[in-house]
């Protein structure tokens, strides 16, 4: 699975409360999460996420287990998230809903073009390629299926 997109830079320890606030959780309308993603961090950020790769600091997705955080990012059009480390529940949630994550400490700016290949295990920014630990075959299967729901629907 390959991708290429422009970077949007965010800081470290981005918690899932800041990705999608608790006040928006009680709905099944996924558009609401995509619309209000990062609202408390920067109300103008959501529309810029379409087709972007988020490049963040360490411990992205910490805090609450709310899966709506990963769904909101994917729904807003985020192609992948790159960070030196992810909080473990967010990591599982993202793979399970089909949002690729890449563990890497990437040097780049807002707007830098980021390329990645999940199978081969590399990510590239500003022409500099960084090797990353490839996702397990099981995780890649889930991502290829589009998420764990689709994975199981086909498998059954």
């Amino acid at each position: 699975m390959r991708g290429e997109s422009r970077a949007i830079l965010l800081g470290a320890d981005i918690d899932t409360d800041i990705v999608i606030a608790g006040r928006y959780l009680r709905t099944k309308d996924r558009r609401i999460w995509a619309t209000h993603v990062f609202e408390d961090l920067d109300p103008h950020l959501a529309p810029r996420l379409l087709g972007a790769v988020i490049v963040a600091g360490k411990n992205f997705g910490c805090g609450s287990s709310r899966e709506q955080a990963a769904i909101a990012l994917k729904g807003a059009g985020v192609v992948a998230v790159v960070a030196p480390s992810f909080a473990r529940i967010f990591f599982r949630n993202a793979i399970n809903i089909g949002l690729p994550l890449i563990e890497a400490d990437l040097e780049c700016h807002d707007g830098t073009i980021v390329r990645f290949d999940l199978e081969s295990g590399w990510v590239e920014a500003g022409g500099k390629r960084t090797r990353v630990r490839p996702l397990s075959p099981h995780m890649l299967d889930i991502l290829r299926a589009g998420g764990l729901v689709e994975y199981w629907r086909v498998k059954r």
Partner: protein
Amino acid sequence: MSSLSERILGAPAGEYIDRKVDRAYVHDGTGVLTLEAWKGMGARGLFDPSRISVIFDHIVPANNSTTATLQHELREYAKGSFLHFSDIGGGICHQCMSEGIVLPGEVVVGADSHSCTLGAFGAFATGVGATDMAAIWLTGETWFKVPQSIGVHLHGAIHGATEAKDVALTYVSQLGMDGGSYRALEFIGDGAGSLSLDERLLLCNLAVETGAKTGMFYADDVTVDYLARYGQSAEQQGTEPCDYVQELEIDLSDIVPLVAVPPRVDTVKPVRDIAGIPVDQVFVGTCTNGRYSDLARIARIVKGKKVAVRTIVVPASRETMREAIRTGVLTDLVEAGCSIGTPGCGPCLGAHMGVIGEGEVCLSTANRNFKNRMGIGGEIYLASVATAAATALEGEITEPGVP
């Protein structure tokens, strides 16, 4: 030798394993998405309804018709499917699971990040998301990476106005918000044995605030006695020397009342260093500090006095509330001017029942003080019950006196 996680999961740290789970639970927040994902998987059955719990705690009673409609669907499904269902007022999922359900050595998954709380029993207990949980409903299994373990050596005993909460804030500040990532915290040493089960639940509760997969205590006589009260028999887990990837040494007798200042749980200061900051609301409750022992503690401090600011007390469960009624604790709280909420999460997640306003400050006994969590533009200071009680009486952040 093996860590407790390795013993329970049956594999060495670093290995990926598929493991059958003994207990799986969701709440009204994550349960709606779990049910939707489970239906999306084309699922018709549950792996074992007797091992699955649905516990309404996050927005109870419902705050508006949207929430009520979402809850209705999950409630109707849960009631008709022979799984353990706890409706509004039953209490917080982690607390309900701690009242004679989770046993030492079990693998427990909850669709909530604070599921690590139940490691207090010597179980391997951790949080997952809704879609993971849907697959667990379907198959009874999930994958884990067996965690490396951090040994948290506790020495001595808590004294004075210090509480287990101050111990928890101490280790969170030492490890930082990602210092425990992908690892399990094992609380060991003579100080661990001196702690009550309630205090152990609290210490394990904050493990996830360091990114840890879980926090754990070895089951000992305290665990066995606690479970016996619920008619459960359990065996102690012998401790054995184990190679930890990291070790912390904490002398319980050194710890003073602490507070985590907004917006991070790992920014911790002695209460006395920030005393005098005016607060608008005090909140005592949650899966961190809403147990009977917590309610009894605040009642002891405010009894016969009047709180100076609005003070919300939410029992962690119906059992907790019943005991507080029986012993007169609830009467003392009401007479001191406290407001009592329906057992559940209360205002911790900023959805209802005590949301704070722009520029307001809340001193809370909960576990998260992230930006805007309890309301847009509000700030949250996290502290112990004694600090919350002293603060409620003065209307400003106040160091608790020695009881």
